[in-house]
């Protein structure tokens, strides 16, 4: 890769952007070369999204210049960005679910004759792009029936069909399984070798090392630096650049040996989702649940939490058999379910933190809510979850880390003893992650039992006292902390050793 100012594909320079009262970006520079994968990293709120949105023309910078292939360019909107060869694959995919892949790819640019779309031409264009990406699914089915990984390929194909030279990807692997991520990486490398520049945002540092040629680190809206692949690009150096300090190893060991069985699951089955799943979780223990997306882990958790109804099997809580017809039953039995999707399943975004935290059981007198008591108990629960945010704020205004703490505070108040965490740190930045881990270990040290579903290998290996691996709806392995390794877990989860 050549590093000279002359052949850079795109240069953003001196970019600043202020929102009322907040400086989102200050004097940031981003330079892209043809044929590079450029990682953009930083904690939540560091300004990554703002920078991407300026690059894609969604926001306009207060100051700063943009040059594409040496020519100054002003982007008044995403349409102009696309016209200048910049495309974006959004974190929450922006496809029309009811349309098929071909329709989605040509959407908005269909060639038409007297108002009739030239489908033969559309098909030809779309298939060229899809074939380049090794897209194997049927392009004629509506995209909502495709997996997330396949949908992402459709978005990428749309970018290619736009003749994009710069492709912006915002956390592309956040909802992909390990296998799907690998496939995506191959495709990105292929695009790199054909001269595209890819801007890539990710919270998974491991990916950055395998993929990126260079990484630009932002912190608090300021450019901390751009580092080249090689010596500078190590986890420790990046984390230090992101948070401004080093991070200790997340590994936390339990202070007490595991106690009696708190949750026992025998032969749990639910028609298409999973079959004959059995395991237990003891007091003081974190049991990790590994597996690819679609292995049925969340579905098992939903049955244990009463959110879905199981077809067969038995659930014992503290030795007592339970039949959960609704979450109300499992909440009563002391089970707390912290869902992966906090925005839709964990928090009522418009309601205050106090109301969210006391939702399972607001303090009442003759059904009238005691607001002062509600505020006080919400505040103390939130402090236990190590957050000091004002409880009168609305849940929707918080960052991911604080939202997770609010959900945790809610379940601390119900005196739950069994916690099911589904992807506890998804979308949460490095600093807040460590806090969530510490809180989880604190819970087990105080006698709780935790079942933790996670797709992040370091998280599973560092946090779990035991690991249960699922594949295609079945439990395929169970191992103790000492026996577990990344290779072994991945081998079981992908079926590589069966």
């Amino acid at each position, binding site marked *: 890769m050549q590093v000279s100012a002359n052949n850079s594909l795109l240069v953003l320079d001196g970019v600043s952007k202020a929102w009322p009262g907040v400086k989102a970006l200050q004097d940031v520079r981003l330079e892209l070369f043809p044929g590079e994968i450029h990682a953009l990293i930083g904690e939540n709120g560091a300004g990554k999204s703002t920078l991407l949105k300026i690059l894609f023309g969604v926001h306009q910078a207060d100051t700063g210049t943009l040059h594409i292939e040496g020519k100054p360019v002003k982007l008044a909107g995403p349409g102009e960005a696309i016209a200048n060869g910049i495309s974006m694959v959004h974190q929450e995919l922006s496809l029309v679910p009811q349309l098929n892949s071909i329709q989605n790819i040509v959407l908005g640019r269909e060639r038409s004759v007297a108002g009739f779309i030239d489908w033969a031409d559309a098909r030809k264009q779309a298939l060229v792009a899809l074939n380049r990406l090794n897209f194997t699914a049927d392009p004629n089915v509506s995209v909502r029936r495709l997996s997330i990984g396949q949908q992402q390929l459709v978005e990428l194909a749309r970018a290619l069909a736009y003749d994009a030279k710069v492709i912006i990807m915002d956390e592309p692997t956040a909802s992909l399984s390990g296998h799907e991520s690998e496939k995506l990486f191959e495709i990105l490398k292929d695009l790199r070798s054909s001269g595209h520049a890819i801007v890539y945002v990710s919270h998974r540092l491991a990916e950055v090392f395998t993929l990126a040629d260079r990484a630009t680190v932002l912190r608090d809206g300021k450019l901390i630096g751009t580092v080249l692949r090689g010596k500078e690009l190590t986890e420790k150096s990046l984390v230090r650049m992101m948070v401004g300090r080093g991070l200790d190893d997340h590994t936390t060991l339990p202070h007490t040996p595991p106690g009696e069985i708190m949750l026992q699951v025998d032969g749990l089955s639910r028609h298409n989702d999973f079959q004959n799943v059995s395991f237990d979780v003891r007091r003081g223990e974190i049991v990790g649940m590994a597996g690819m997306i679609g292995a049925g882990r969340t579905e098992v958790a939903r049955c244990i939490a009463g959110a879905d109804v199981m077809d067969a099997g038995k659930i014992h809580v503290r030795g007592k058999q339970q039949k959960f017809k609704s979450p109300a039953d499992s*909440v009563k039995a002391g089970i707390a379910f912290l869902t992966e999707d906090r925005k839709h399943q964990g928090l009522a975004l418009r309601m205050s933190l106090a109301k969210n935290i006391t939702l399972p059981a607001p303090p009442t007198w003759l059904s009238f809510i005691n607001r002062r008591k509600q505020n006080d108990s919400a505040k103390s629960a939130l402090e236990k979850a190590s957050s000091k945010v004002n409880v009168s704020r609305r849940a929707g*205004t918080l960052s991911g880390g604080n939202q997770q703490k609010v959900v945790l505070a809610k379940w601390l108040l119900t005196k739950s003893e069994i916690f099911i965490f589904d992807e506890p740190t998804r979308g949460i930045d490095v600093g807040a992650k460590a806090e969530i881990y510490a809180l989880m270990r604190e819970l087990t040290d105080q006698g709780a039992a935790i079942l933790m579903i996670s797709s992040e290998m370091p998280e599973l290996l560092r946090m779990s006292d035991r690991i249960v691996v699922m594949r295609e709806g079945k439990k395929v392995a169970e191992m103790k902390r000492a026996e577990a390794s990344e290779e072994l877990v991945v081998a079981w989860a992908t079926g590589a050793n069966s």
Partner: protein
Amino acid sequence: MTNTAQDEVIDQTRLQTTSKASRFKRIFAEWPEFGILAALVVTVLCFSLIDPAFFSGYNFINICLQASVTAILAMAQTTVIITAGIDLSIGSAVALTAIVSAMLMKVGMPIPIAMLGALAAGALAGLFNGLIITTTGITPFVVTLGTMSVFSGLALIIANGQTVYGLPPMFSDVLAGKIGFVPIPIIIALAVLTILSIMLRSTKLGEYLIAIGGAREVARLAGIKVAIYTAAAYVIASTLASIAAMITVARLGAADPIIGADLLLPSVAASVMGGADLMGGKGSMLGAVFGALLIATLQAGLTFLNVQAFYQQLAIGIVIILALLFNRLQEY
């Protein structure tokens, strides 16, 4: 702690921002009824400027009296809209319960029994709506579209298609009478406003209705019995419809089985103008009452200025859309 620190910074800058736009926004955030109240005041002032005779206590009491039925129905509608639902059958429920109360009196039942009968019929109608919606999962819009026809059909069958006359004068004397100079329907509407506002603001029921409307899955996973609370909203709505029905019967001295046809639109319009969000999770009883007052003021004012009925309908529709536009602006 970096996160918390960052959130706090945003929090403080929010408090410190003092530009006019954001101060305006904060008034809205703390007092969502502000917009509809402003619209109401402006409307009253406009009519009063055009014709100073409009500005009289007698006229205002009359407008409040005219608005009382719409206000009760708008509050009923708000209860349902907050849960992300809608009750299209509310006008038909008024017709049905009006006929039930009138027929009970006609066959010689004492007035209190007839009133209880109407309340029970309303509660049953709401339970019917609520059970279908919560057990089948069919959207409230479609279910209540069906029961709109069912209730209205039942009303016509029971009344044999005829207006029911010859009710005991005592009924009208009480429900359409006055205490001092205040008509009783206004007092009933104010009582409903007080009770429902307290329900929404300070009880578990109210908190759960808002949570269900704003984030149904969050509420369900928190262990809330979503079906029961959702059904309760429809029971409350139809029971309130029966109260509105009895006021109407008392004022007319008769019960007409097609009485409810014109009541649905104002109930939804007043509720939404008052700040209720059709997506659920948000709504104000006081706002709904202001909305009903705005509609009644327009009707009274335009009549006062001798505007033809056809033009009145046109004008009211335009004002409703303007008010909703205004509400929409405050969100940005």
